[in-house]
């Protein structure tokens, strides 16, 4: 049978330089067009930064900038999963619950004398299991991911409340507190640990998207699930992987947040449901799936964090901040992040 093998991809001679015979100007223009698309949310982030500096007196100092970076990092870590689930055409509504679970468990376990790395390992395995179930139920059982993850979140949070009755006594190691402190540093790097973690995770996420088989499958699965299935993309594997990544990243964020407040709080992730979705959408990732990516979400995280800081800075109270943040994000998305109308997509 080997004799009949078609050497279609291996036996063809290429141009010496391996390039296509197309005008470079066309290629260049296309590439520029794509970069402008990604650049817009970054430009907005930069512009907003200047606006904050102008509006809030005395904001312009290093500590303010570090706290912006720190808050954006936490949001960025929680948004990795939201970005990927939205690209494959789903949602992860269980992110806040998994954050709360991890937050409570890490204080509880460490406070009870469990070594921190054992505690972290357990939490990551538990969250991975939650994510795998999310992916399995959404894809294999063909249940709506919105409902599945909302229900999963409800189950997880309910369990946490039942186990703790809202009273958690525990503690976290000092270095965890330092890693989310503005004055913290990571070895020789004068940045808090969480920022460094975010930088590493961002690079990994971008590599995942562009340089791995799973990454390209994720985009194919989101762009056209039916075609992806026929083209041999292992859809269940893709969905379970993505939801596992999402839950693990949510758990890591929850652990880091334990250092932030010192006390464990099951509701620590509550505001992250809206903020993660907002960061993804403001970044320009389409809710229709298959388009966008984590690079955009990075910009989106800065924009969303800056908007919150801005609203605190102009002296709004908590309800006022929530109202205005909601309005501003809808306005932003309406300005440039809109899905193309149906007539344009057909």
């Amino acid at each position, binding site marked *: 049978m080997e004799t009949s*093998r078609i050497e279609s991809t291996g036996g063809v001679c290429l141009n010496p330089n391996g390039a296509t015979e197309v005008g470079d100007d066309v290629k260049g223009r*296309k590439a520029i067009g794509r970069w402008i698309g990604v650049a817009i949310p970054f430009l907005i982030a930069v512009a907003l930064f200047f606006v904050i500096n102008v509006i809030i007196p005395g904001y312009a100092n290093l500590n303010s900038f570090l706290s912006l970076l720190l808050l954006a990092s936490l949001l960025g870590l929680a948004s990795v999963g939201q970005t990927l689930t939205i690209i494959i055409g789903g949602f992860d509504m269980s992110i806040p619950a998994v954050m709360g679970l991890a937050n409570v468990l890490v204080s509880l376990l460490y406070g009870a004398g469990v070594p921190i790395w054992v505690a972290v390992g357990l939490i990551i395995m538990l969250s991975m299991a939650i994510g795998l179930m999310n992916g399995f139920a959404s894809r294999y059982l063909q249940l709506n991911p919105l409902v599945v993850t909302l229900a999963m979140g409800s189950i997880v949070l309910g369990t946490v409340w039942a186990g703790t009755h809202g009273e958690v006594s525990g503690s976290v190691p000092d270095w965890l507190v330092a890693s989310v402190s503005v004055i913290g540093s990571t070895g020789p790097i004068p940045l808090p640990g969480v920022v460094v973690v975010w930088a590493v995770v961002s690079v990994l996420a971008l590599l995942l998207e562009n340089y791995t088989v799973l990454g390209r499958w994720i985009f194919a699965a989101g762009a056209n699930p039916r075609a992806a299935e026929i*083209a041999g993309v292992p859809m269940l594997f893709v969905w379970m992987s993505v939801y596992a990544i999402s839950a693990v990243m949510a758990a890591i964020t929850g652990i880091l947040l334990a250092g932030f407040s010192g006390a464990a709080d099951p509701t620590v992730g509550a505001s992250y449901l809206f903020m993660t979705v907002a960061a993804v959408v403001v970044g320009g990732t389409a809710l229709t799936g298959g388009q966008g990516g984590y690079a955009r979400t990075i910009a989106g995280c800065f924009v969303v964090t800056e908007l919150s800081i801005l609203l605190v800075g102009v002296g709004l109270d908590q309800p006022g901040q929530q109202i205005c943040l909601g309005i501003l994000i809808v306005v932003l998305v309406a300005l440039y992040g809109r899905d193309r109308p149906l007539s344009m997509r057909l």
Partner: protein
Amino acid sequence: MNTTIAPHSLSNAALLEVRDLRRSFGETRALDSCTLMLQPGEIHALVGENGSGKSTLIKILSGIICSDSGDVAWKGASARFAKPRDAQRAGIATVFQETLVLPDLSVHDNIVLGLDDVVRRRSGQLREAQLVREALAVLGVATLDIEQDAGSLSLANRQLVGIARSLLRPWRLLILDESTSALDVDDRDRLFAALRRFRSDGRTVLFVSHRMDEVTSLADRTTVLRSGRTVGTFAGDEATTERLLEVMSSREGARAAEGHAAAHSRAANGPTVLTWSEFALKTGRAPLSLELRAGEILGVAGLEGHGQVAFLECAAGRRASPCGTVAAERGAIHSPRDAARARIAFLPRDRKTEGIFAPLTVTDNITVSGLRRLARWGLVSRQQRRRVAVEVGRNTKVKMASPDSPISSLSGGNQQKALLGRLIATDPQALVLNDPLRGVDLGAKRDCYEVLADLAGKGMAILLLSTELAELCQLCDRVVVFHNQGVEAVIGRAELSEQALIAAMFGKYHKAPDVDVNA
């Protein structure tokens, strides 16, 4: 045959004049500067290969679709038929290729279909029956029982019923779009006699046919279309079969055919890739035992819904075989996973919903299925993917600005070539293609023919479902024809013709006694 040639004046009294008519469907130019002039009292033939624009022209004249530009003059006045009713009112009666006959209605009701007002007038029924009988008598089938269900009629009689329906309204121009394909010789002669009578009444007939003997014996004049353009109009004595075939065919077509002939000679004794044993789609249907060899293009044909798609899906492991087995070298195929392991690649029918990833690049679209092969430890570089896309894209003749441009920026034909490339990038030994060239423009089609013939020449086994008979005749070594969920015939290269395929598709194929199915 006593025919009276109606005196037609070629001076000014054209019944219908079409000038520079154009119509595009997306990227495809179906009609590109089409010209046609019909005289009162003539029988005019319209010929051209598939996709040359005949059906588009007829649809415009019948008010089914509108032209993009160009003039239509009806009885000397400019006319535009926005809907079928407009054309009917003007006096144009059209009988389409696929005659719409409702099987649950009686012959009578089928013929008067569409003639009723909103509320049917019972009082006119006697007169209606009279008209129906007259129409059938004109076509020479006065003996047909008009109260029987149309579903019980033979295909030929159904077609005559369709024609009778068109005759009921007052008309000046009758358009027949390949309406004779299902008629036997007697029916056809009776129909032709009727057409000649219409001509002597001063009425005009425009008919499309692929049968040159019909054209040369019946038509007063013949207009030839090629790639949506009018190549010329020939008077009866100029329109010899050789002449018409010559102007109809273009040089590229001939070359594509030659390419396959070369591949064909090499194909004969490759190893077996797929084996059907005692295979049937339904219990009780005659079982099929067949082998697909490396280097062979096996066609699959059938009227819509007659089982050919299920046959294809079984071969691709997307459907379990109802009876018997389909097996590759390593064992029976029950699932897409089995098919993938046997290196069988499947191309689905609907490009938009099952094929392309519209927001992704050409590179992504081509490499998605072959990523596993390219990757090491789950990693695959952008350059590597691009390189494969460029290579495969060149092999399948994809015309693209850059492998990084979105696939949606490509024409439909080039998208289809990219999808073919996706299959090839998985290094398959068999391709299972579900009507890959449907709705693809002519140039891309020719490219694809060459690509497929080339692949077969290199030892690829290809299972090709097509709805275009000419395509099957041109490309395939053998064609399996389905009728009523069963295999009606396996037609070998020697017997392969559009007529044979049509006969088999309608369940009328008479196998030559000594045809060995696995020859």
